[in-house]
């Protein structure tokens, strides 16, 4: 159906893709795999016409084609479900599904009723896992419903090749199951499907073949039935890694944080205790209130309930109050909450700390301290004066953490810090966390990556619907109990 050969894409001096190959047949589901920076998203964008390749060949059913725009790709039957949502918030579900291919007579007289009925029919595919109606505005929908509208929008164009790029990221398990049933059905109807997902188990559930990219080149292709997760990971990173436990056994110190009955609109009474030198994990499906909990503890959102640091009751009205008590928060959304992209690394590192350098600011001292932290983090950079936007995802994340390390926090709140970070940087990050623990920092660590929680934490609280459904430690801390608890299964799971 589609074949991409020798695809090269340069962004200025950056070579995002040096030799991309990809082929998919009608009625086939292909998984596209690669670590961050492997070029898999660039390859996906080339196939859907979002970016034009520097060189290379695209063929559809054997005929060479070029896609100067997403519109051209769509006309050729290639449609993508984007990870970054392509919905218009102020418009209704129906309007969004048909955006760009409205039914009309010669451009006028939109056939609103026909489109509405068609939208209803598409929404029925996902019933009862969604409750959205054709007239709802996108801005009133939950993230998972928006994601499903995105899928339906792509589907409404009756594509011959559908690309699902992290399309399950914000879906709950029932919605994922329903999607996979539909994928099976579409496949039998002769649709070609390319799946990009960071959830390996999902890929094994639906894909027949995997195409693996590494450092901008396609390095291999394997039938899912003849390969294993380890083999694919090996292909992705180029060397064998065994799932390992990164945690070092530190001794727990004094009680740092205790919380009783913490409530917000998303949280229904959370109790927790955290000691110095302890790494407490927060797990569960995404969007179960983990972020709200971290933000509440950081004074960024108001809450009801009791919170004490070292036994002393505290109430934070503003992140500034929390910072003064040695609390630091590392956000998950680097670009928006963590960094000032166009400013220098130095300025970003020192942003929360300038007032320690007096008036006028002692630039040389600030620079010295920043350099020290940059070296501790083995930050790969040109100089402290280079803008943060010049760094890769993993290095940029180090700057976010580094800016709090400069304040020597006593309690570190981490909100999914390794999201979108490559494997190598993750390893360095784990080492860093262990060093911090040994220095006695108390760490509350939310991660959407179960492996990470299992590998790093002594204890994991699993949240579901804003309440703790399990506190796992010791031999209870394993994959099956973690998954069971995150799905809200309350009975004991045999280890």
């Amino acid at each position: 159906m589609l074949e991409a050969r020798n695809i090269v894409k340069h962004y200025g001096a950056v070579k995002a893709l040096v030799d991309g190959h990809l082929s998919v047949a009608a009625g086939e589901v292909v998984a596209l795999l690669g670590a961050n920076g492997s070029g898999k998203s660039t390859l996906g964008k080339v196939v859907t016409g979002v970016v034009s390749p520097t060189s290379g060949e695209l063929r559809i059913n054997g005929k060479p084609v070029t896609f100067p725009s997403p519109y051209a790709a769509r006309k050729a039957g290639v449609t993508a479900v984007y990870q970054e949502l392509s919905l218009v918030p102020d418009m209704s579900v129906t309007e969004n599904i048909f955006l760009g291919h409205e039914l009309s007579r010669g451009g006028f007289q939109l056939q609103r009723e026909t489109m509405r009925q068609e939208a209803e029919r598409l929404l029925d595919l996902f019933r009862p896992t969604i409750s959205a109606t054709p007239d709802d505005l996108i801005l009133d929908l939950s993230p998972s419903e928006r994601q499903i509208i995105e899928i339906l929008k792509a589907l409404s164009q009756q594509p011959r090749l559908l690309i699902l790029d992290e399309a399950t990221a914000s879906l709950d398990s029932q919605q994922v199951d329903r999607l996979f049933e539909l994928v099976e059905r579409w496949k039998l109807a002769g649709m070609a499907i390319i799946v990009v997902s960071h959830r390996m188990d999902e890929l094994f559930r639906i894909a027949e073949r995997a195409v693996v990219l590494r450092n901008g080149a396609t390095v291999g292709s394997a039938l899912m039935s003849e390969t294993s997760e380890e083999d694919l990971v090996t292909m992705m990173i180029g060397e064998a890694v065994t799932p390992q436990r990164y945690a070092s056994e530190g001794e727990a110190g004094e009680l740092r944080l205790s919380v009783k009955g913490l409530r917000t609109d998303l949280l229904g009474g959370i109790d927790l205790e955290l000691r110095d030198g302890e790494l407490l994990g927060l797990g569960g499906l995404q969007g179960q209130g983990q972020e709200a909990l971290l933000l509440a503890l950081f004074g960024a959102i108001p809450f009801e309930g009791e919170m004490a640091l070292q036994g002393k009751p505290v109430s934070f009205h503003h992140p500034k109050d929390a910072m003064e008590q040695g609390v630091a928060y590392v956000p998950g959304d680097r670009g928006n909450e963590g960094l000032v992209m166009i400013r220098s690394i130095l300025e970003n590192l020192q942003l929360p700390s300038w007032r320690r350098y007096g008036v006028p600011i002692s630039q040389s001292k600030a620079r010295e301290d920043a350099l020290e932290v940059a070296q501790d983090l083995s930050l790969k950079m040109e100089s402290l004066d280079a803008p943060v936007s010049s760094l890769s995802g993993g290095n940029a994340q180090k700057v976010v953490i580094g800016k709090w390390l400069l304040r020597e926090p006593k309690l570190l709140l981490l909100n999914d810090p390794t999201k979108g970070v490559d494997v190598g940087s993750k390893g360095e990050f784990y080492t860093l966390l262990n060093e911090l623990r040994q220095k006695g920092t108390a760490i509350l660590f939310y991660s959407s990556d179960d492996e990470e929680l299992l590998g790093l934490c002594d204890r994991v609280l699993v949240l579901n619907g804003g309440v703790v459904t399990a506190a796992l430690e010791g031999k209870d801390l394993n994959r099956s109990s973690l998954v069971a608890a995150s799905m809200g299964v309350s009975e004991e799971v045999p280890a």
Partner: protein
Amino acid sequence: MTWRRFLRQNPYLFALLLLIGLIAINASIQSNFFSLRAINGNFRVLLPLMILAVGQSLVIIGGGIDLSVGAMVSLVNAILVTLIVPESGAGGVVLALLVGCSAGMLAGAFNGLCVAYLRLQPIVTTYATSFIFSGLALLILPRPGGQLPRALTRFYRSTPLEIPLGVYVIIVLLLLWALVRSSRFGQYLFATGSNADAAYTSGIPTALVKFSTYVGAGLLSAFAAFALTLGIGSGNPRIGDAMTLDSIVAVVLGGTRLSGGQGGIAGTIIGVAILGIIRSLISFANVPTWYQTLVNATIIVLALAGPGLWRLIRGRV
């Protein structure tokens, strides 16, 4: 939620209530407010701004802004009074109108080219081009002057079927707008203004949509200049300059969101009427006319600050 959707679909409701209130106040002060003569007079004065603000609405809904509409009015006004003399016949007048339309559309196309295809900032670009258009107007008509044939100005004052001419123009504008709303282009316009990236990845030619809003604003500026020129019967190369701010205020008053993607021209027309009545109240109150500018500017700042103020009032930041 249904209430919220109702407001969203009829964003001019607040403006309409304000207008009714203001009309009531004005009518109680000015006894002959509802006479055909007074109404026709008000329409004559407000019609140019209404047409201009409709053009501004197009651009703002599409996610841009056009600070050169007033200068385009000046330019077309200068062209008209130069080409039309008191002795001009029908042919000469039609030719002049065609030249005026072309000039407006060319000026708008230039704005659109810079903003949509060269991706320059709309505010800076159209502020800069406004000086080009003003300069051209001064080049064509260095000082106020010119005179139109009596027949033309009489036509503009006419009230066919006892209804002011302006009402017909407004009806035509609203019908055209209904056509836009029921067309594919209408969907593209609102989608582009609300989230241009999403619109682009949905296969919408967003650059072309933006470009066409500026061309539309240019054409409507030319029409506004026709109305203005017929109303005063002569030319002034600076005559439109003050209208730019008014056009934006009217759009905002009418419930169109300044950041784009929401609103409509019915609200804008109501917004112009509100401005007209405020102006007449200010003149009745016997205060200096510069209060009008003060009121206009305050409305814009309040509109921009509105959402933030609302959050402050509710006590959560």
